[in-house]
């Protein structure tokens, strides 16, 4: 279908401009263009595929509703991420899944009196042949450590590292100064290193 897509060479901004001029396919092209990227972001941010799909759909519905607010030439990508992030936060609030726990919290005491942190507990989930399990276990541990970051830090890590947004774009998405983006990212990395140092398998790796 891509070979037939007349919008391949259009920028996001061109697509929105064309849609506003009445070419409805341009909107569909934008949805398809961001299907993988934005769903991936929401899936990572929300940790739930059903919720991610719902928020993805809502994001484009909001984009459609706010189309009249779009100023020609304004970068679409950060705007889309802004809408998606707000929708994701609302969704988390509605689903009462919003958790702000640090790695030092929620320590659980085992029957033998030993105390494990959340990351350690997640690390014990590996099953199956050791070679196959190691990679998956490592991935889960990394994801768990990012998930356990406070939301303010987690947002910048996901947007900067996994989604590849520029500092300026992240600042626009989160409506904070660029300097704050930098300092949050710096602090997030420090926290992650601290968590990884506490985790035996990651420390060894």
């Amino acid at each position, binding site marked *: 279908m891509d070979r037939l897509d007349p919008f391949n060479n259009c920028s996001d901004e061109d697509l929105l401009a064309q849609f506003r001029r009445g070419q409805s396919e341009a909107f*569909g092209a934008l949805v398809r263009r961001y299907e993988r990227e934005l769903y991936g972001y929401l899936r990572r941010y929300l940790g739930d595929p059903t919720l991610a799909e719902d928020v993805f759909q809502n994001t484009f519905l909001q984009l459609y509703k706010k189309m009249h607010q779009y100023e020609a030439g304004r970068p679409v990508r950060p705007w889309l991420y802004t809408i998606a992030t707000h929708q994701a936060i609302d969704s988390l609030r509605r689903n009462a899944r919003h958790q702000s726990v640090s790695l030092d919290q929620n320590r659980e005491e085992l029957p033998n009196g030993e105390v494990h942190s959340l990351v350690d507990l997640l690390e014990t989930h590996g099953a199956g042949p050791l070679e196959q399990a190691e990679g998956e276990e490592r991935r889960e541990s*990394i994801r768990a450590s990012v998930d356990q970051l406070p939301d303010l830090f987690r947002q910048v890590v996901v947007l900067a590292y996994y989604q590849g947004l520029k500092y300026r774009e992240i600042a626009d998405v989160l409506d904070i100064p660029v300097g704050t983006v*930098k300092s949050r990212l710096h602090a997030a*990395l420090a926290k992650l290193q601290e968590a990884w140092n506490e985790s035996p398998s990651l420390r060894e790796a």
Partner: protein
Amino acid sequence: MDENLIGYLLNALDSDTRRETERYLQRNPEAREQLSELRQALEPLEADRETCDPPPGLWVRTLARVAEFQCRQLSSVPRRVAARSETTHRTWWRRADVLVAASVLLCVSLMIPPILAKVRYQRDIVACQNNLHNFYFALNDYSSRHHGNFPDVAKAVPAPFNVAGNFVPVLMEEGLLPGDVSVQCPAYGKSTHPQYTLHDLLNMDAEELDGRIWNLAGSYAYSLGYRDAGGEHGPRLDPSQLNSMRPIMADRPPRDIVLGTISNSPNHGGAGQNVLFMDGHCTFCPQRVLPCSAGGFDDIYLNQDNQVQAGRSPWDTVLGDSAAHP
């Protein structure tokens, strides 16, 4: 400057800051060492770089959701707000009770007809869908016999007989229509069996055709195909396309369609229309603007130029009534 090093590694800096950071790194060996440490520090995140695939058809469902909103918005009519009656001081409770009881009875009696109407309405929609499925059996058989092509109303017969309604005589001619199929939507009129074969149609003169043209496809609409630089193309079952999003038949369009209104088919009281798709599924759509397989939305009764004519591309579906010309 040190805070920019992470941004440098992640390619998150704007071009000016990036150049500035590069110059800083060139003249500062300690910064280069710090960069190397940061690179190592970020490395574990790479283990979780892989993103999940989106569920199949996510973009289609997203467009459907937007289309649903779009149509709800277009079809919503401001409702008059009922004036709130002023609270009156109750002086005689027996009289009030009688009034309440009478009101309840009145409400119940008023509720019964709408409930019955709703049941009848739902029944008609299902009956109409069953009827469209009967048409699909014939259309599918026809496409099997003709290399995937459905009846092409533009080419089946010469002008002035080249109307959308002639797909019924074409199917009749090949003996494909089941005996119980009706060209009238069960919600709109009495069951009427198709009357004319292609042979009958070609033996009519222009005046006779005018008089009977609405009887051809009755209260249904059929695809007018599309026209491009390569000429006219009839509807075709193409395995490489999303046939589940390509309509072939539907309840007929509203009569005032040329005025550019957005009203629905009159067959079901204007509440929507049954649409039969090329893969054989039939859905009642409360709006006539549907997501199309190329992305975006498509008015199933008008082409991209807002005309009742053949579409402008393979994705521009136009379902014309019995008398519509491609």
